[in-house]
């Protein structure tokens, strides 16, 4: 089975202030604020562009490479 490396956004929920800056900048609406408490990334949609990480005022979003089997 072939393995692909893809970039995805990861949120450190502990420090997320759920301000919604990431939601505003995401070009494919892959991120939303869950129950007003933290930002949740839809990993199936996220393309790892890094816009959210750049916009996050608390700098709690990290772009990491993940391995995906396909």
């Amino acid at each position, binding site marked *: 089975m072939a393995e692909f490396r893809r970039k995805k956004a990861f949120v450190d929920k502990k*420090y997320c*202030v*759920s*301000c*919604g*800056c990431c*939601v*505003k900048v995401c*070009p*494919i609406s892959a991120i939303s*604020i*869950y*129950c*007003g*408490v933290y930002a949740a990334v839809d990993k199936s949609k996220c393309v790892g562009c890094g816009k959210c990480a750049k*916009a*996050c*005022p*608390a*700098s*709690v979003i990290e772009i990491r490479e993940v391995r995906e089997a396909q």
Partner: protein
Amino acid sequence: MKKQSKHWYDYLYIFSAAYLILGFFNILFAYLGLICFFTPLAIAVIDGNKLYCNRYCGRGQLFSLLGERLGLSSKRDVPKFIKTKYFRYGFLIFFMAMFINMLFNTYLVFSGARDMQEAVTLLWTFKLPWNWAYSGTVPPGLAQFAFGFYSVMLTSTVLGIITMIIFKPRSWCVYCPMGTMTQGICYLRNRGRIKKEENSVSK
């Protein structure tokens, strides 16, 4: 990728900027700021989300505009201690204590125990003369609250502008007392769902 279209609520920074300017001319406009105080709380209590921060906060938009579009922000990361619950809730408690102190001063003026001060207190310390913005059309107690509330709004804006310049544009959002409070309310309202979600992720 679709380009996100602009909505009416993307222009609320005009309201925020107008609010600060109007307070220079007539302090009674300060009462409009109560909207920014009660709306986020109402949304968090009734609906259990932070839609106000996420969508309607004019101040956040103003900081984005100044920092991002006008390039006034250095876009550095905020220090880690500002993100901690201790600092955020500590700042909320401090802010509320100062708010209660302001309400008490208003009460003293209402009861006649103290004369009204036509001044705006910046950063809880510096008293700026503001006598041109009040013409004596309302009872002193009501005007005192307007001066006090405008002081709160101006102080938080100044703090936000300072951190906007030093750190990321919307770094105020990290320690905004309203944001901390509404997030806390959302957590309490939705804790069952959040715990369930966390358990399903960790399994």
